[in-house]
């Protein structure tokens, strides 16, 4: 139980920063957003813990979870689909301009089809 020393505020801040940095590396939009939200929630929940044992426990769990985030963000980047989520694309690429692009492409497609026939 010697290892269960309560973390210093500096250590907690460092852990938070590492989490945020690791979370940003997720290739998936949803996982990135979730990590951000969940890490903030987790630190907010534990910031008022008084008992050193509970603080140490929360800190240890955080460190373990950080490793999961690090591993999984690498894994996600290895298998990320070639196309991003529409949430990451420029907001101007809304359905209106997309419809125009789709129309143009379907027109050129039918043109090639008809000229080859």
């Amino acid at each position, binding site marked *: 139980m010697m290892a269960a020393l309560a973390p210093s505020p500096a250590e907690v801040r460092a852990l938070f920063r590492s989490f945020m940095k690791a979370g940003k590396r997720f290739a998936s*939009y*949803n*996982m990135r*957003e*979730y990590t951000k*939200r*969940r890490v903030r*929630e987790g630190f907010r929940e534990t910031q008022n813990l008084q008992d050193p044992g509970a603080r140490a426990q929360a800190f240890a769990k955080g460190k373990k*979870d950080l490793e*999961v*985030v690090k*591993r*999984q963000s690498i*894994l*996600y980047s290895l298998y990320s*689909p*070639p*196309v*991003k*989520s*529409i*949430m*990451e*694309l420029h907001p101007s*690429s*809304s*359905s209106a*301009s*997309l*419809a*125009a*692009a*789709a*129309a*143009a*492409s*379907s*027109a*050129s497609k*039918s*043109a090639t089809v*008809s*000229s080859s026939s």
Partner: protein
Amino acid sequence: MANVSNRARPLLGKFFCLARHGLAQRARAAAPLPQTGKVQSLSRTSSLLLRPLSQLQWKYGMGTAAAAAAPVAPAEPSPAIDIKGVNLAGRPLYLDVQATSPVDPRVLDAMLPYFVEQYGNPHSRTHMYGWESEEAVEKARAQVAHLIGANPKEIIFTSGATESNNISIKGVARFYREKKRHLITAQTEHKCVLDSCRFLQQEGFDVTYLPVQKNGLIDLKELEEAIREDTALVSIMAVNNEIGVVQPIKDIGEICRKRKVFFHTDAAQAVGKIPINVNDMKVDLMSISGHKLYGPKGVGALYIRRRPRVRIEAQMSGGGQERGLRSGTVPTPLVVGLGAACEISEQEMERDTAHVKRLQKKLYDGLTSRLKSVVVNGDLEARYPGNLNLSFAYVEGESLLMGLKEVAVSSGSACTSASLEPSYVLRALGVEEDMAHTSIRFGIGRFTAEEEIDRAIEMTVKQVEKLREMSPLWEMVQEGIDLKSIQWSQH
């Protein structure tokens, strides 16, 4: 007009464009207008080809139409995805978590070791590979049991909730067939429950399909009256997959225990999302699905009560795994994933619920404040907040779904999403045909971001307004005509 699909629309536009183009050329040929630059060269090409009824004109006409349409979207990159004839700029935002949920990274992290080095068969008793797999499976069993307040010995692993439902319904009915010949279920159950019951009917069993009230909940009095001397099992789902209503499981459990009838609940959509305790709720059998609670697909669990003991006839014959109730090698990585998903869901339930509730309110308020005639299907109170099933009046559902290609939603259950028939669940609620046709199920989960909800509201409002603008029905309603008073001519 409203049922012209979006896919066909750009093409239709092209035809109109072509027709107009042809007309202009003909006019020009009749009375030549002053022409300059590009227009001149264009008309020269086409005047060369102005041979009525020649195929050439058709061919080149298409070409010029495409050339003319190209400058409309100048710097627009070509759509990145072309799948099933639909062009998308990016992956759609996902609001269909009732169909399936993404795997939680923590779940995948727990599973991966059993996909690589720890590949032992959990039933191998002679070496370490087997032992470590068995240990992992038993840990997962305990995790699943803990989430629902059961004993690990009461959990068996299956391939999913469909299998669990089949084992429960057919297994119980067949085991007690000598004395009990009757089953009770509800009209809004999942297809696999209804189909298992149909199957048993062919074997000579009697089945009562309880109707539901307008809000999707069953009437407890009706249930009590339906129970007979020879009733073997009552099967009512906890959270409905299409409309998200939460049935009064605890009350049903009390009634069944009092009348000494086994109670099975399909809790695929409920476990890990709302608090479930098999002892409080007096549930005798319960189906659990892995991929509905951020776990892997292809794995599920079945809770079978030991005291008072529920006995079932196994469906699968084989090596006698899972106490002989479900033969077949237990898939260690999947089962580990299910266990991890259960444990994480237990830890995250409070946070998830708060998040999902907030987003559901945002989505509901955002849509209803900007659109008129939007109706929630199913009870708004007795509902799992992650499911918002809405009907948009005077909009054709399929057109709306086609228009909302950048939002992954469905009109109901994924199993029946291939058919154009309105959902049988909505019809059981007494939702009118036209409203049942316009339903959309928005699913919100742990990994739904707030911005996604904003974007979904934006796109849905735009699409609904667009479709309503085209709808003659909507126009008539705006003019104050009661649609029900219209005598449509018969063809």
